[in-house]
Each structure stands twice: as structure tokens, then as C-alpha cells.
């Protein structure tokens, strides 16, 4: 038995994205944001996308490129506080935004990746975040139905990968990446290093390669990755 080779070019990986797709994008702030994949998606031009991402990055960075290019119709997120441009798009009605509590967004994505239909949670009960949500009573108390989220495509940034798609992340660049890497029909990972098969300790894999469809190796990182030229 041997494991298949999922390496491909960034353009080939991105080419399957279609208009109207739902796209998950890893990252919390800059760390873990798949900046090269985002630029390739801007170049590719697919429109009317629904993005799922923790935050909207900052103006001129990360998914802001997709927001400013007008490719995004809807954003499922937790917080836009660092991107005044995203807030302006939302306030002008050009971007539909759905806010989730951050840990609930994480759990909804995880549920999608785990093949669970929904979770029941009391987070937000009694606040406006509960508005419009289905309620289930358990032992006499109300819980909100938080449906699983899945995407057509997930864009993932990893520190290292192997050719089968096993992934590992570093530091706080992990964040939503391992959750999203389980929750999409097509998972595309950019990695700072792609190692030969067998160079990964099986205990240190954060995302098993079975979840990953395409692996692309990054060359030199741009300054948008917060690389400081010293």
C-alpha cells in the first residue's frame, strides 16, 4: 500500500471554484490566512461567493481583496472590527453579513467536518443572536439549534504538508484551519514546506491527509504574510 500524491499548482487547485460557491478561509488575523490562495481566487474571478472566515482581515490584506473585488455576496463571520472597508460594504448593503459567536462558528464548522447535523447550545440565549433560531427544550431549558456549516471549498494555510495532504500548523496560525480542512467537499492547502512522504511524525499530524484534496507549496512568502524583512 502507498498513499496518493495530491501536489498540484496553485492555479490548478483554484480552477475548480465556481460562481456561487461557499468558500471557507482559514486564519485569525494574518496568522493562518492563506494569502496566496486568496490572490489566486481573485485572479480566477469566481463571483457571488459566500465566504466563511473568522474575521475580514485588515484593509488591503487577506480576504479584503475578495471583498473589494466584489466577488463576495455573503460573509459568515464573527467580527469585522479591524476592517472598516468591510463594515462600509455591510452598512451600504453590498455585503450580507451573518455574525456568529466565535466559538459557535468554530463548532458549526467542526460539526460540518464531523458529519453532525447540528449542535445544541445555550450560547446567546436571551440575546439578539438567538433571534430567528430554532429552539429545542432539553430538561426544561431552551437550547439553540446551531446547524453545521460545510463549504464547497476550503482554503487552508499550513506550515508543512506531505504529498498525501497531512498538515501541521504552527502557533496561533492553527486557529480555524484544522476545522475548515475537514468541512469542505474540496480542501486546498497551501503549505510553507511540502515534505516527502514519511518525513512527518504520524503523531504530529494536525489534519489527516484524507481530508485534503490538493496541496500546493508556497515559494517565498510575500510581506502580506507579516514577513518582516530584516
Amino acid at each position, binding site marked *: *500500500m*502507498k*498513499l*496518493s500524491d495530491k501536489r498540484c499548482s496553485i492555479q490548478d487547485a483554484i480552477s475548480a471554484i465556481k460562481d456561487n460557491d461557499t468558500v471557507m478561509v482559514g486564519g485569525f488575523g494574518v496568522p493562518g490566512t492563506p494569502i496566496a490562495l486568496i490572490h489566486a481566487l481573485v485572479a480566477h474571478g469566481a463571483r457571488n461567493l459566500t465566504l466563511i472566515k473568522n474575521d475580514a482581515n485588515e484593509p488591503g490584506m487577506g480576504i479584503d481583496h475578495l471583498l473589494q473585488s466584489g466577488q463576495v455576496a455573503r460573509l459568515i463571520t464573527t467580527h469585522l472590527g479591524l476592517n472598516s472597508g468591510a463594515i462600509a460594504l455591510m452598512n451600504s448593503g453590498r455585503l450580507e453579513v451573518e455574525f456568529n459567536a466565535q466559538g459557535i462558528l468554530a463548532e458549526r464548522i467542526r460539526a*460540518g*467536518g*464531523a*458529519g*453532525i447535523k447540528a449542535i445544541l447550545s445555550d450560547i446567546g440565549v436571551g440575546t439578539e443572536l438567538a433571534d430567528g433560531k430554532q429552539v429545542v427544550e432539553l430538561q426544561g431549558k431552551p437550547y439553540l439549534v446551531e446547524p453545521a456549516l460545510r463549504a464547497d471549498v476550503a482554503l487552508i494555510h499550513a506550515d508543512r504538508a*506531505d*504529498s*498525501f495532504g*497531512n498538515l501541521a500548523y504552527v502557533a496561533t496560525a492553527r486557529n480555524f484551519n484544522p476545522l475548515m480542512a*475537514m*468541512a469542505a*467537499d474540496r480542501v486546498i492547502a497551501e503549505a510553507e514546506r511540502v515534505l*516527502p*512522504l*514519511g518525513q*512527518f511524525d*504520524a*503523531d504530529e*499530524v494536525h489534519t*489527516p*491527509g*484524507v*481530508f485534503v484534496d490538493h496541496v500546493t507549496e508556497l515559494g517565498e512568502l510575500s510581506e502580506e504574510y507579516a514577513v518582516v524583512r530584516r
Partner: protein
Amino acid sequence: MVARAAREIAPGMVVNLGIGLPTKVVNHLPADFPVCLHTENGMTGIGPTLPPERADRNLIDAGGAYVSTIPGSAFFDSATSFAIVRSGRLDLTMLGAFEVSASGDLANWKIPGKFSPGVGGGIELAQKARRVVVLTTHTDRAGNAKLKQNCSLPLTARACVSRIFTDMAMIDVTAGGFVLVEIADGVSVADVVAATDAPLHVPDGPLPRF
């Protein structure tokens, strides 16, 4: 039949092989065949089974056999292991059976009053693998048919089985019920029909042998 069943596995598939006959399928794959074997207790990329004296005490498959890694193996917890199964990343599972119905219902975990050790991971494999095939003897030890119009035993999952490999035949489960597709050497169509407790559609013309 095991050799024939091995041809179900296409290059690049992620596959879970159930305890018993299915486990033996791997012996019929070429050494460098591109396949990723999954086991419920938390591993992808299972390598060859090892004798106890060469084993890693921490490395077993879900059946308790000592196994090994291959380049690219990964370990993970039990929740992640079934996330693979339920979220559609398991292309194929091969399972044993007590009974299979003509609509693809599977019963393989409980014989009331006799055998009820619990369901383990079987329900999720049967219900959520993209393709479920069964490897089983065509009849039980008492000679009773295992392929029936309806299952009499508690179900593992409904309408899940696509194909059945037995010592007598390869049979597909279709919207119209059981269809005989291939037949074992030395077995007649009449033998298979007689050993099957449900209508069996037999195509015209000669059937492939295995």
C-alpha cells in the same frame, strides 16, 4: 471471493475493512497499490500486520491486530476517526453480515438472546461510507440464507449495501432487488437461486466467473 472483492478497491480510495473476511482483502492488493486504509481506533495509512514479537504495543487496528505504519500514516483521536466516516471521506467499507435484505438493509451486530456484544463502529461505517459492500458466506452454518427479502434481525443500517460478495456469487443490490452479476467457479445459477431467500434477477447470457 476475497480476491474478487479486492478488485472493488480503486486507486486512491480511502477504505475501511471490517473484522473477519474483509481484513483478508488487503492480501490481494499489489504491494505498491495506492490505497489509504482507515481503522476506527484512530489511524489512516495502515501498514502490514506484525507478529507480537515485532509489534508496537501502542499500535493496533480496531480488531486488535498489531499493525504498522507506512510513509504518510497519521494518528488521531476517536472523534476525528468517525468524522472521516460520517463526513464522506471514506470511499468504501467492506463489512461482514448476518443478513442482507433485497433493499440493502444490513444486520450484522446482534442476534437477540444469543449475541449482543454491542454495535461498535459498525452503524456509522454502514450508514455513512460512500459505498458499502458485504463479504459473507452465502448461508449460515445451519444452511439458512443470509440474503433475504427482509432482515429478521435488528438492523445495523437501512438501504446501505450496494454489493455482496459470497462464496457463491457477486450480487448487486438494485432498486429492483438482488441482481446476480458474477458467479463462483463450480457453482450453478440454480444453486445460487436456491440458496437465496429472495427473488434473484439473473441476466440473460453467460455470467462472468470468479
